[in-house]
């Protein structure tokens, strides 16, 4: 399963800024509630996390030693 940015629905205010900033179309608003579509086009730019005013979207990094 491909990792995607995480959403906490209860924090989402439905503003849609994340939909506007997402370059790969992974985020959609359905009846003012944010939803995420799994896509390999998501390159973890973290812009959705950056722009979200309520902290509803997070893009956590796994840190590994090569």
């Amino acid at each position, binding site marked *: 399963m491909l990792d995607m940015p995480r959403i906490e629905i209860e924090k989402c205010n439905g503003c849609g800024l994340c939909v506007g900033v997402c370059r790969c179309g992974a985020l959609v608003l359905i009846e003012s509630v944010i939803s995420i579509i799994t896509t390999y086009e998501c390159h973890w730019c973290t812009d959705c996390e950056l722009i979200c*005013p309520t902290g509803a979207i997070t893009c956590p990094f796994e*840190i590994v030693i090569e």
Partner: protein
Amino acid sequence: MSPGSGIMAAEIEILKSISYFSGLSTEELNSITKFISKKTTERGEIILLEGEPSVEVYFIVSGAVKLFKTSAEGKEQILNIVRQWESFGDVAVFDGALNPAGAQAMVPTMLYSIRRNDIEAILREHPQVSRNVIQVLVSQVRHSMSLVEDLSFKHVIDRVAKILLEYAGDGSGNRPRLTQQEMAAMVGTAREMIGRSLKSLEEEGVIRLDRHRVVITDNEALKELAGANA
């Protein structure tokens, strides 16, 4: 009610939400609507160029704009994300000098703007706006001073290195993941500084950003950096 008056009522409601015009009466806001220009921008559109003259203050009605500076090497430093009801472009308008930063729409954005001469007229006519502008500018100064502190005095990269070592795992998923916001809180810096630090570490060949993974490629170099801040 004519369609025109409906539009004006909507504009007055918008103005009420903008910090510059907080506390003004409907009549006062009504007199300001004639100075407003509207503009919509696409995602990625440059609204202000750093080092260029500007004669308008912008207010975000919807959307978001990033303010940034670009180094001679092309590195971008985000100074601030300006959100709904906030303003930008104020500095160059009030001091008459060039834009200290660029401004780019992060999403499709609707803006109101007011030209310098008109702002001056509004300030003369409505002392409350002057008081509001002082509050807005003071808030911007505080944000900038905090960023200056981060950029000047804190060894952010060293501390990011330390956190990466502390949270590094073998990829089996048994270690907690960290967002840039969480790393920023741990380091005691702005989120913008974390993105910059990770990019610097990648350029130095110490880590590799592999989508949602930070892969430590030079453990010894990372330890050395972390040790500098131990």
